[in-house]
C-alpha cells in the first residue's frame, strides 16, 4: 500500500491507455497488471465517438489521471486541465508542456508557469519534467507533491538516459513522490528505478506495442514490485573484490595440505 496525492493504492504502476491493438487488449493489460491508475487525454472527435472509450473506463473502475499531452503553451495546458477536470471529475492533472518536437522534452518555463496557475485553481498537479534538479525543486516550491521525471524521451524505450541525475533527484527530494514517466522500455528498467527509491513507474508504449500486451503489463507489474521490495529491504553496496559467500572455516582436507 502506498499513498499518492492523498489516495491509497496497491500497485505502483501507472499505465497509459494509448497505442494498444484493441480496446480489449488494453482492458486485459490493465486487469492483468493490477494497475489502479491509468492516464487519459482529451481530443477532438465526432459526436458519439468518445463515448465508447468513456464507458470502458467507467467499467474498469480505475483512477483516472488526465494529461495535457501535446500542449505547447501555458494557456493550452491550463484550458485543457480545466476541461479535463470538468469531464473526468478529478482535480488530478498530468501536466505536459512540449518544448522540443524531436525529443518531446518538456518546456520547463511553460511547465512552471502552468503549474503555478493550476495549483492556485485547486488542481493536484503531476508535472511531467526532466531529471533537472533545479526545475524539480522549483516545482516542489510551488506546492507540487508529485513529480514525473522522464527516464528518456517518450516512447523511446531507452531506459535510464541519466541515472546519476535521477539518483541525485531522489536524494535531494526525499519527501517528494517521484514517479518515473517515459522512456522505460524493459521490465528491468522499471526494476532499476524502483531499486533507486522512486515511488512508481508510468509507462505506455513498452506495454502497448509488445507482442502480448497483457503479459508484458504483468511483467512490468512484477518488475516494479520486485524493485520496490529490493529497495525497502536495503540493497548491498558493490565491492571491488570477491568475498566468499560460503564459510571458509572448516574447509575440509585438501585445502591446507601440501602436495607431496
Amino acid at each position, binding site marked *: 500500500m502506498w499513498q499518492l496525492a492523498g489516495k491509497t493504492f496497491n500497485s505502483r504502476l501507472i499505465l*497509459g*491507455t*494509448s*497505442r*494498444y491493438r484493441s480496446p480489449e487488449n*488494453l482492458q486485459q493489460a490493465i486487469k492483468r497488471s493490477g494497475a489502479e491508475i491509468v*492516464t*487519459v*487525454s*482529451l*481530443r*477532438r*472527435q465526432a*459526436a*458519439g*465517438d*468518445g*463515448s465508447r*472509450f*468513456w464507458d470502458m*473506463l467507467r467499467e474498469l473502475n480505475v483512477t483516472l489521471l*488526465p*494529461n495535457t*499531452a501535446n500542449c505547447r503553451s501555458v*494557456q*493550452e495546458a491550463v*484550458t*485543457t486541465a*480545466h*476541461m*479535463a477536470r*470538468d*469531464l*473526468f471529475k478529478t482535480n488530478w492533472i498530468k501536466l505536459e508542456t512540449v518544448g522540443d518536437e524531436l525529443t518531446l522534452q518538456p518546456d520547463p518555463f511553460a511547465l512552471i508557469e502552468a503549474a503555478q496557475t493550476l495549483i492556485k485553481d485547486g488542481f493536484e498537479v503531476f508535472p511531467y519534467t526532466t531529471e533537472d534538479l533545479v526545475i524539480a525543486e522549483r516545482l516542489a516550491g510551488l506546492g507540487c507533491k508529485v513529480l514525473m521525471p522522464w527516464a528518456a524521451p*517518450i*516512447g523511446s524505450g531507452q531506459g535510464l538516459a541519466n541515472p546519476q541525475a535521477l539518483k541525485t533527484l531522489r536524494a535531494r527530494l526525499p519527501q517528494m513522490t517521484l514517479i518515473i514517466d517515459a522512456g522505460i522500455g524493459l521490465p528491468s528498467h522499471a526494476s532499476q528505478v524502483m531499486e533507486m527509491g522512486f515511488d512508481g513507474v508510468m509507462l*505506455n*508504449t513498452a506495454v502497448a506495442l509488445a507482442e502480448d500486451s497483457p503479459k508484458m503489463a504483468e511483467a512490468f507489474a512484477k518488475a516494479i514490485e520486485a524493485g520496490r521490495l529490493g529497495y525497502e529491504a536495503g540493497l548491498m553496496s558493490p565491492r571491488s573484490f570477491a568475498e566468499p559467500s560460503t564459510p571458509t572455516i572448516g574447509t575440509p582436507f585438501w585445502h591446507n595440505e601440501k602436495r607431496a
Partner: protein
Amino acid sequence: MKLIVNGKQSESNAATVADVVQSLGYEGDYFAVALNRTCVLRASYNSTPVKDGDEVEILMPMQGG
C-alpha cells in the same frame, strides 16, 4: 452567424453553448467545452452566450499516455 467549431467554420443560430453542443449532436456527459480558449463548465452551458466569430472547442475522452 459564424462559429469556429473544433477549428472549422460553421453556420449557427445558437444562442448559448448549450445550443451549440445540442445542435452538433453531443449528448450525455462525455465531452468538455472551451469557448475562445477558456473552459466553460458543464453547469454554465445554458448561461454562456455565443456570438459571431467565437471559437468553440469540444473535446472527448481519448486514449493517452
